[in-house]
């Protein structure tokens, strides 16, 4: 079964229009398998993908582009208990997760 999601890349365009990722520390809540993460992470200083689903994170870890090795980390956690100190991130993204 072949599904193409957002072939026009509208989501990516609107995300980059809404915020400038350059030099920013980003937290994505509900990153899932990283589908959205790959679309902006290269522009960021660093990106943390947070998701409660271990299976999705496993896929994200396997599928992530190799050039993002140093920029992306995935964390298995709930949004209600974010395991980071206060004022750690410049940008937070709720990706289909509120």
């Amino acid at each position, binding site marked *: 079964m072949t599904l193409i999601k957002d072939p026009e890349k509208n989501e990516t365009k609107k995300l980059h*229009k809404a915020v400038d990722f350059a030099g920013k520390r980003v937290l994505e809540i509900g990153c899932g398998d990283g589908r959205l993460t790959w679309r902006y992470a290269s522009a960021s200083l660093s990106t943390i993908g947070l998701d409660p689903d271990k299976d999705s994170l496993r896929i994200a870890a396997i599928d992530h582009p190799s050039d993002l090795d140093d920029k992306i980390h995935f964390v298995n956690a709930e949004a209600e208990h974010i395991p980071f100190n206060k004022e750690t991130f410049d940008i937070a993204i709720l990706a289909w997760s509120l």
Partner: protein
Amino acid sequence: MVHALSEIRRVLVQKGILIDLRPMSEERRVEVFSTRETREIGDATVLPRELDDNVAANQAMTTAKSNGWFTRESEEFFPIHYVWDSPKEMEEWIETEWEDFIEIDEEIKQAARSAWALGDGDTRVRVKVNMLITRWIKKDRSLNEY
């Protein structure tokens, strides 16, 4: 959800940005399309869980705003498409992945199959989803936080 927003606020720097990106639940339009033409077939039925999730999300953001945690800077609606090669693939995907959120009436399924079968060689099927992206800014600490 409100607790999650409180946590997000905690880990954001002052004036940090929160992007809320999510689908709106008012419609999921089924279209059959090719490079030559697009035919709107009809709307899928949005199920109560999808509607409830959207109401809850809106209420959480309203609470966060009224608590003085975030200020809304901008918002924009835009469409995205989910595209399949055939109506059968679309139906199977919706029945497994979106089973809790939408369903497609038999009449619309039949209309999509017919339009697809009679279409050009590059005819495919898609569901249009309306999205909302909102940019929020973390407000300065209130006095009682010091």
